């Protein structure tokens, strides 16, 4: 197991190096002069002298690879630079918004799993019946429904019409503000996860070892919970992990609609203002989070599937 972890950690190094280069290089793919963009006034003009000064101050006059190495050096020391717009430290801004995103991600994830896993199991056990059809239709509906549309419908119903929940904002971080965005995100992921859970469970139920479990005289609930569940969860965990990665990176649309002060909203606003240090920092952060989540998924996968452990040992 330790060897497995060490190998995976070592694999992270080239992946993260590549990601950092790409996220830095993004500036040079976007059109326009970085310094000029940063100092552009709302009317469109920029003071030439100020631009030159800014360019030198920010080291933008140096060759790309020097800029990258300087940036990387700082990043490795935990310094992601400062916002062109607000002068706030990029890492401070990320940490400030990530908390809100993390909270939303966890609640959304819980909602999606609490719906998807039981529903998927029930649909599989009742496959071919009206219950299965109903669950599948609901899931299809959930998958097809765009987030932004669902968000507005929920705001209209619960905030405007029933007046039971706030329409947007973070509030004091209380539960009532998180419910609508979390349900919007959670149900979307629940639909996809439920379909996978159903398919996976159906596949497992056809396996010989399920018949073997019945042959031992196990009652059906033990056949399902002890023999089928763990096996059928393997693909579901992989998918849920990836979904959690997406959630942690902030859902741009849902955070924007609900004015949720999360990472997604931060990215959108920094893109709109061409705040490059912020964009670079966010992309790097997101990538690192994503890679780490993948790593965690692999670890849980190894826990669920003893064959994985074995293969790395040889």
């Amino acid at each position: 197991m330790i060897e497995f972890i060490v190998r995976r950690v070592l694999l992270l190094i080239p992946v993260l190096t590549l990601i950092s280069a790409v996220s830095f290089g993004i500036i040079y793919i976007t059109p326009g002069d970085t310094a000029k963009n940063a100092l552009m006034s709302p009317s469109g003009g920029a003071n030439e002298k100020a631009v030159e000064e800014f360019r030198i101050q920010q080291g933008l006059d140096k060759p790309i690879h020097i800029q990258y190495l300087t940036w990387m050096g700082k990043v490795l020391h935990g310094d992601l630079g400062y916002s062109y717009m607000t002068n706030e430290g990029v890492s401070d801004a990320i940490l400030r918004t990530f908390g809100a995103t993390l909270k939303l991600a966890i609640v959304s994830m819980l909602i999606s799993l609490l719906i998807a896993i039981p529903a998927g199991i029930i649909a599989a056990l009742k496959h071919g019946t009206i219950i299965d059809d109903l669950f599948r239709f609901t899931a299809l509906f959930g998958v097809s429904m765009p987030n932004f549309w669902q968000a507005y419908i929920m705001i209209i119903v619960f905030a405007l019409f029933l007046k039971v929940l706030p329409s947007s904002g973070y509030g004091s971080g209380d539960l009532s503000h998180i419910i609508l965005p979390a349900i919007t995100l959670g149900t979307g992921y629940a639909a996809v996860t439920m379909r996978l859970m159903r398919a996976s469970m159906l596949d497992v139920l056809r396996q010989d070892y399920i018949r073997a479990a019945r042959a031992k005289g196990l009652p059906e609930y033990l056949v399902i919970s002890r023999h089928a569940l763990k096996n059928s969860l393997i693909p579901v965990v992989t998918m849920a992990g990836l979904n959690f990665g997406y959630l942690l990176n902030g859902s741009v649309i849902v955070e924007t609609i609900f004015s949720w002060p999360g990472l997604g909203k931060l990215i959108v606003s920094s893109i709109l203002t061409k705040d490059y240090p912020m964009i670079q920092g966010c992309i790097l952060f997101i990538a690192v989070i994503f890679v780490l989540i993948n790593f965690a998924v692999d670890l849980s996968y190894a826990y669920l599937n003893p064959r994985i452990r074995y293969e790395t040992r040889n």
Partner: protein
Amino acid sequence: MFENLLNVSDLHVRFPTDVGLVNAINGVDLSINSGDIMGLIGESGCGKSVLGLAITRLLQEDAIVNGRINYRGDELHALDKKTMRQIRGKDIGIILQNPGTSLNPVIPIGKQIAEPLVIHQRMKRFAAMDKAVSLLERVKIREPEKRAKEYPHQFSGGMKERALIAMSLANESEFIIADEPTKGLDVTVKKNIVKLLKEIANKKTMLIITHDLAVAEDVCDNIGVMYAGEIVEIAPVERMFSEQLHPYTKGFFESLPARGLKPIKGNSPSLIDLPEGCRFHSRCDHCTERCKKEHPPMIEHEGRHVRCFLYA
């Protein structure tokens, strides 16, 4: 020892499919006396595995089962699910085919063997694990304590088969159904499994389903031959091996590598659209007009039974 332990009469099993009903078993009568080792042989698709699964009610849910299966006076197909569950793994031990896939890949072997003990004897987990270790020892797995903690992928094919056998022995069932216990094993491993089966068979009643004649000859007391979902011949093992009465049985014996590798002409009939008359008539060298029209009953011939008009 002559008491009828299992009595199957006029058993039919059909599976609905997109292309029609598959008649997997068509009127099987079979009785097994207490202490008997009955071997069921026949080519792939003849229905022998389905018979084993039908007895234990482990067939897929949409299977249509008609007929009677009486075990020690109980009509198995009339029992409620709970009672049937209590018979499975306790009174009737089952060794399923495909050891590679019949063990759960994510549960340690010992735990899988301990399960029937916990379920049927309400044994505590630790006691059950100890018993599982001793069962592994009984099926001759070395270092049973260490092996009990391992997962199926860490076991070889032969060891998996042993583990399945250990599982079926857990509750000292008096009747054991073994479905292809030597399938896919190499010769030396097979030899050891046969030895093990013989040891077990010593004190039990067994139904051994196999297409391996050597195994059947070595372990069984009586042999039944199945063809196209019915039993075409039954005889004590020595008599079956010294002389085969049914033309299909003869052909089956001769088609095996050790006995000449002479294939039977033609193919098995479609189980969806069964032929009229004798099911073997289109492939038989002794076919008469009667064979084409009339389905032969089981005919007694010199103390053994055969489904062929040659002996009428």
